[in-house]
């Protein structure tokens, strides 16, 4: 039987606010345990939540970025369950009426474009952390993270492969950073994905029973986990088994998923509207204010790059893959002033390759957009060849200084003096009579050999176009 996998994602995005969602305690990562746990974070008797308006603005930002309906009236509810790192015994979340309604995100998988529908996004508070090491059989509780604002983003089951799920997650990861609501740090848990996976026979329109892979904090693990889980479900069904709805964890060491708890044992969370918080009412003016401060979104920028700079769709897509990359490109184009395609080639080529190799963010690039532009100007005005430019770029990356200084120091200036080149050509023709004879006998290849000899004789500095031209004239 042919099987189809059906995937939906729930992503917890930690919002980049200075303080917690319902109190003034700091959200900074990495502080000593419980130093950011104020009276509200530890749920002292009598304390009350007060909603952080910045968290709401972040949610609206996201809603606008995915072209979603913004809930004009959303309600905070209590999700009741006991756990030591959940200080109130309930989590404040949004249940029936979320702040962000239906929206969508377009992804690119290979060459195929696809729209993933987003069901909803809602605001909620994070829990604290239980620490089980170093306490001699006891557990420690760190409530620094308790109350950190999260936006939980839920998709429809629209993805049909691990690659699509990862493409969606990457796109979302980029978007939330692009609009400045999340730092995207997956190691620190700022972006956590839960993936719902089910399989069904191809052609069936009924969804299979799903299992939820919890807390994936890297795209690589996500890919592996979905692939494993898909195989496991198909094998289980083909062996005559049944899938039980369950929550599973991915073990990166074994590459396997295993059930954490089955959903039948799941808590009844007894959701009800939190009487400590009034319904969140968002006005047209609130939305307009957020809209006015919203940066140009990736897709709009991609279209603009095509029309404004005459770039191919592919280039425009790559360059708008991250806010930092786009900013770098725009700055380099502005400083360069010439052909944008040349800048695009270099940013997508050498710059991206070196960043990738060094594991650096584009913002931390040792070669700034202005420095890159200065180098490209030397290509444009024929001071150096493209090949020479690569060498100069390497030197710039290594911190040897500005392009002009390196060209000067290394004597890489291209020779475009017709007289000088003619002299070299004459010498090469005199020294390579055999090649000249071959060329004249009709062997085109010999011409390239002669060009190569000329370049070698000039130590690569002769302008190749001029060498070609003069050589042709002399051999005619």
């Amino acid at each position, binding site marked *: 039987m042919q099987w189809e996998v059906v995937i939906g994602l729930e992503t917890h995005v930690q919002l980049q606010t200075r303080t917690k969602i319902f109190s003034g305690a700091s959200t900074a990562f990495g502080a000593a345990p419980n130093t950011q746990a104020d009276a509200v974070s530890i749920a002292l008797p*009598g304390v009350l939540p007060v909603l952080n308006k910045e968290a709401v603005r972040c949610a609206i930002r996201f809603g606008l970025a995915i072209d979603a309906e913004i809930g004009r009236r959303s309600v905070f509810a209590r999700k009741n369950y006991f756990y030591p790192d959940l200080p109130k*015994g309930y989590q404040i979340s949004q249940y029936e009426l979320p702040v962000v309604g239906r929206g969508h995100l377009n992804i690119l998988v290979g060459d195929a474009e696809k729209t993933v529908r987003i069901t909803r996004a809602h605001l909620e508070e994070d829990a604290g952390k239980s620490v089980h090491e170093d306490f001699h059989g006891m557990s420690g509780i760190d409530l620094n993270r308790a109350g950190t604002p999260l936006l939980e983003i839920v998709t429809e089951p629209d993805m049909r492969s691990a690659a699509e799920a990862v493409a969606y997650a990457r796109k979302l990861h980029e978007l939330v950073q692009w609009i400045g609501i999340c730092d995207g740090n997956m190691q620190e848990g700022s972006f956590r994905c839960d993936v719902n996976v089910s399989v069904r026979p191809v052609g069936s329109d009924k969804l299979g029973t799903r299992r939820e892979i919890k807390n994936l904090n890297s795209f690589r693990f996500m890919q592996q986990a979905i692939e494993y889980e898909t195989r496991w479900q198909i094998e289980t069904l083909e062996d005559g088994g049944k899938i039980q709805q369950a929550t599973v964890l991915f073990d990166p060491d074994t590459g396997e998923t295993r059930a954490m708890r089955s959903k039948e044992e799941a808590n009844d969370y007894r959701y*009800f509207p939190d009487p400590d918080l009034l319904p969140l009412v968002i006005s047209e003016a609130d939305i307009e204010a957020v809209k006015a401060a919203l940066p140009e979104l990736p897709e709009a920028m991609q279209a603009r790059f095509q029309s404004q700079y005459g770039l191919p769709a592919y280039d425009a897509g790559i360059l708008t893959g991250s806010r930092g990359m786009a900013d770098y490109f725009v700055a380099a184009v502005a400083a360069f002033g010439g052909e944008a395609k040349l800048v695009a080639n270099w940013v997508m080529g050498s710059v991206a390759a070196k960043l990738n190799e060094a594991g650096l963010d584009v913002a931390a690039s040792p070669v700034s957009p202005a420095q890159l532009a200065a180098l490209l100007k030397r290509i444009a005005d024929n001071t150096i060849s493209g090949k020479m430019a690569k060498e100069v770029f390497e030197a710039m990356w290594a911190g040897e200084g500005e392009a002009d200084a390196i060209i000067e120091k290394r004597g890489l200036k291209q020779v475009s003096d017709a007289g000088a080149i003619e002299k070299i050509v004459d010498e090469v023709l005199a020294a390579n009579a055999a090649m000249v004879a071959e060329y004249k006998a009709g062997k085109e290849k010999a011409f390239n050999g002669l060009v190569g000899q000329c370049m070698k004789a000039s130590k690569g500095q002769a302008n190749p176009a001029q060498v070609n031209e003069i050589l042709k004239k002399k051999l005619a």
Partner: protein
Amino acid sequence: MINASLKELAGALAGKQISSVELTQLFLDRIARFNPEINAYITVDAEKSLAQARAADALIAAGKAGALTGIPIAQKDIFCAKGWRTTCGSKMLGNFTAPYNAHIVSQFDAAGAVNLGKTNMDEFAMGSSNETSYFGKVQNPWDRARVPGGSSGGSAAAVAARLAPAATGTDTGGSIRQPASLCGLSGLKPTYGVCSRYGMIAFASSLDQAGPMAKSAEDLALMMNVMAGFDERDSTSLQRDKEDYARDLNQPLKGLRIGLPREYFAEGLDAGVARVVQEAIDQYRKLGAETVEISLPNNALAIPVYYVLAPAEASSNLSRYDGVRYGHRASEYGDLLDMYCKSRAEGFGAEVKRRIMIGTYVLSAGYYDAYYLKAQQIRRLIAQDFEQAFRRCDVIMGPAAPGTAFKAGEKTDDPVAMYLEDLYTIAVNLAGLPGMSIPAGFSNGLPVGLQIIGNYFSEARMLGVGHQFQQVTDWHVQMPKGIE
């Protein structure tokens, strides 16, 4: 001095007839003498109180005294007061010292008032007789074998026994008005949102409201001037201009339209209480008020609705008492679940457990719509009843409680009988309206309260309605015997 009004006390302090330290010591001495029996206070800390009194005396000497500067006020033990043990009447918080001040406590501190101590109360404010307190029952000063009412029973007994000039209370379903009625006091539950709930330990968040308990309506007005006001730390606190609650005290009653709900004078009301309330209403007629019969047709549903909504909220509000971070933790336990179960089983009393169970049940999947959601719908109908009624009258009057103070132990085995104590008060909380009880007379030697219910934000007018009555009656200045 022990029967003086707050205004008289302020005058005595300003006129140097007495210092705040002396006044505070006077009440501390009385507490030392009477509290071992009456048990109105859970925690008294003379040193802390006297330190505040000394600071108040300095303010008075510097001519910086406000209306309550130097006056000792008892705080219901539901309000967190920095450095004070704050128990909420529960073993669960028997070892809890609050590290911060409730808004109400801060307001009294800022006014220069002296915190005289923390008063006894039903555990987590759940009860109508103060008998659910972990710290023992409280005697009604009018008859020591009887209950003071609840949940603010300690505050009521403290003021009635003149162990405090005034006290704070909280009212979720009648917890200020019913004990005020049973102890012969004036007590006001303001419009929901007028007093900040910050630092007030939550029972049922959508119903809880702080208010003053004192001898007279005038005293209540002075207390309200300190207690009321917007607080950004409580999202349900109302952003309104500061008002003077004493502004309408002398407004004449001529033309006042008093609504008398048919349902408040029907079955369930004690005959003696009915007589006293009718006499009080006659007194109002003499003062120029008119009466009009009104109906609150959904009043009978108020108790069942309340006993769905309040436990639902309570079951969630009380989840934080898990023994993990503060409060009672069982000394021996196996795993985590065992720690939760034992700590909560030991830390909570029977009534609290009963309400947690009811609340958990009504919020459960499959029952939510039938109970919680339905109750919310009826809650709106109850509020609409009042809306209709206030088209025809300015205030509503009736009994505050169906009877006078009952004997300790009389209703402890019958929760429903106990719940019926709030028959006339609960609808007011469900609607978020202000309600007040003032002493209206006696039945068989026990005080009877007259309840006055006003429209939203009409506290100042209601206090005036109470004050005018107290200008021609002396029920509010009568003292129980045996406390001299």
